């Protein structure tokens, strides 16, 4: 309490802008981070506290810095905030007090999954830096953090930006030579080291789950690759990450794109040859192996932009044909999907009925049938609850 009851609030678009401004605020005046909150679509709020003078000084410089990036939504100072009211709000819940280390901190922010992974790989290949994890703030805005000495971080950021721009959109970069310890709450979860290695890493990016599964199905039928993870990039974007020998990954990529286009909404597909172990640990992580039955029945998928439409469609599907509900998945950006199983004719009948029913109530995005799904898909799919 003695630290000061004044609060400063900064609403910002994007994590690079927020982290840069927060670092400046913490260095300008005696304030600390007492809250952070993400509300999607790229909007993030940081809350600081201190004495009125300190908070005013900090917010004034922070606001200016964010405005320079064109990322300011609003800024505010509250002289004496009510403690009980603030305790009932969610922003204080994710404040962490962990050691930050003294090395420089670099951040690359992109729109899309392919550019962030391509950028991360280029960064660790270009300079002696380590990856400090990734996160998203919504609207397919993703960021990855690197640590190292100042010169290495800058070299990494230059290389990462160039690599990411080749395959997508870079939103911002940030280099903090001497990051303030108070930034800990803003950092993504740390990376767990793995011993993963592969000749190639493929990233299939889709909008929605149906396209991701359609691409998954086709790539493993076309080539000897293993799908390691379906990663949610927010804003409806999903990244299906697959690895194998470089030749196999290259052969799988074309099939993945075709499969995704047929099933749903394809965005892009990109191959990284001989990926470093760090981006593999960071984005692929430990293998997920859900224990599910070795189901070889036909698979049906339906995706909508309305829960009401999906629930009504699923109810009709189960009433009309001999199919079983298997699970659901939300991709963000209002996309919601469900999966059924049954024999091919039953699944086809169910999807036709479901499509008609869904369209009566809301936006139907896609339906797709996989007549003969390979059993190795089962343990990696994200809709199993």
């Amino acid at each position, binding site marked *: 309490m003695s630290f000061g009851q004044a*609060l400063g*609030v*900064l*609403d910002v678009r994007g994590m690079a802008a927020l982290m840069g401004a927060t670092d400046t605020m913490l260095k300008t005046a005696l304030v600390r981070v007492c809250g952070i*909150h*993400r*509300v*999607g*679509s790229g*909007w993030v*709020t940081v*809350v600081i506290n201190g004495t009125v003078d300190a908070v005013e000084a900090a917010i004034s410089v922070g606001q200016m810095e964010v405005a320079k990036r064109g990322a300011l*939504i*609003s*800024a*505010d100072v*509250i002289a004496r*905030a*009510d403690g*009980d*009211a*603030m305790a*009932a*709000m*969610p*922003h204080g819940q994710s404040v962490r007090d962990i050691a930050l280390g003294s090395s420089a901190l670099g951040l690359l922010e992109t729109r899309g999954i392919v550019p962030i992974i391509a950028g991360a790989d280029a960064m660790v290949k270009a300079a002696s830096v380590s990856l400090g994890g990734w996160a998203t703030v*919504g609207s397919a805005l993703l960021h990855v953090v690197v640590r190292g000495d100042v010169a290495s971080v800058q070299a990494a950021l230059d290389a990462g930006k160039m690599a990411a721009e080749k395959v997508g959109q870079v939103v911002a970069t940030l280099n903090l030579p001497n990051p303030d310890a108070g930034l800990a709450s803003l950092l993504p979860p740390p990376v767990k080291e793995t011993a993963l290695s592969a000749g190639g890493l493929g990233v299939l990016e889709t909008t929605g789950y149906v396209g991701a599964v359609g691409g998954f199905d086709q790539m493993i039928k076309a080539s000897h690759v293993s799908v390691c993870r379906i990663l949610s990039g927010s804003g409806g974007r999903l990244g299906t990450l697959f690895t194998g020998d470089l030749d196999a990954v290259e052969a799988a990529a074309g099939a993945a794109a075709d499969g995704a286009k047929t099933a749903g909404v394809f965005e892009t597909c990109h191959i990284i040859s001989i990926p470093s172990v760090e981006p593999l640990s960071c984005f692929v992580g430990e293998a997920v192996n859900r224990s599910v039955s070795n189901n070889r029945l036909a698979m049906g998928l339906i995706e909508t*932009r*309305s*829960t*009401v*439409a*999906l*629930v*009504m469609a*699923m*109810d009709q599907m*189960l*009433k009309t044909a001999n199919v079983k*509900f298997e699970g*659901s998945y*939300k991709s*963000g*950006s*209002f*996309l*919601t999907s469900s999966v059924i199983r049954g024999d091919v004719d039953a699944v086809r009948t169910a999807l036709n009925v479901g499509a008609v029913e869904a369209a009566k*109530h*809301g936006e139907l995005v896609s339906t797709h049938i996989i007549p003969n799904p390979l059993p190795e898909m089962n343990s990696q799919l994200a809709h199993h*609850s």
Partner: protein
Amino acid sequence: MAAIGMVEVEGVAGIILAGDAACKTAEVNLLGWTSIGGFTTLFFNGSIGAVNNALRAGEKAAQGISGRVTAAVLTQPEPVYDTYITARSQADMAVPKGALGLLETRGYGCHVRTNDAMVKAANVTVYQVLTVMNRVVCSLIVGDVAAVKEALAVGQTLVSSVENYMGSALIAQPVPDVLRAFGPQGGSK
């Protein structure tokens, strides 16, 4: 139960109003709700007649604050509907007495100021702040009717000029199940 009623809106204030109106209009049980990134859906059940009546009332109440409202009745439902409900009404949860005030905006920052100003303006407490993504944030305050009314007036003055203001509403006597479904233990999404 013979039927399920569903109401879907942008934001979350609309389904809070819908849930309250539905339960006051007919014999229906509030089951819970879910969010798909800014759009939320309310679920309740009852006899077909009750669900139909409740749905009309709920739809109308939601239209008071939300633009487009999607509503549907599912008769003789397959049990699968239940898997879509991610935040449930907690049966034995104690709820505060009095009125409920809602203030919904895009963006979180302004809620720090408005909640602070509202608890200072009148004898109300912040019950819950719901974040349903796509930037939508809704603050729920509780207190006696006059206090909530006064607090909301202050909150509105602070945010109604903001382009991100979505709406506010007062429920004088909220149904306890509404407070349970959208309360601190009711779940975030």
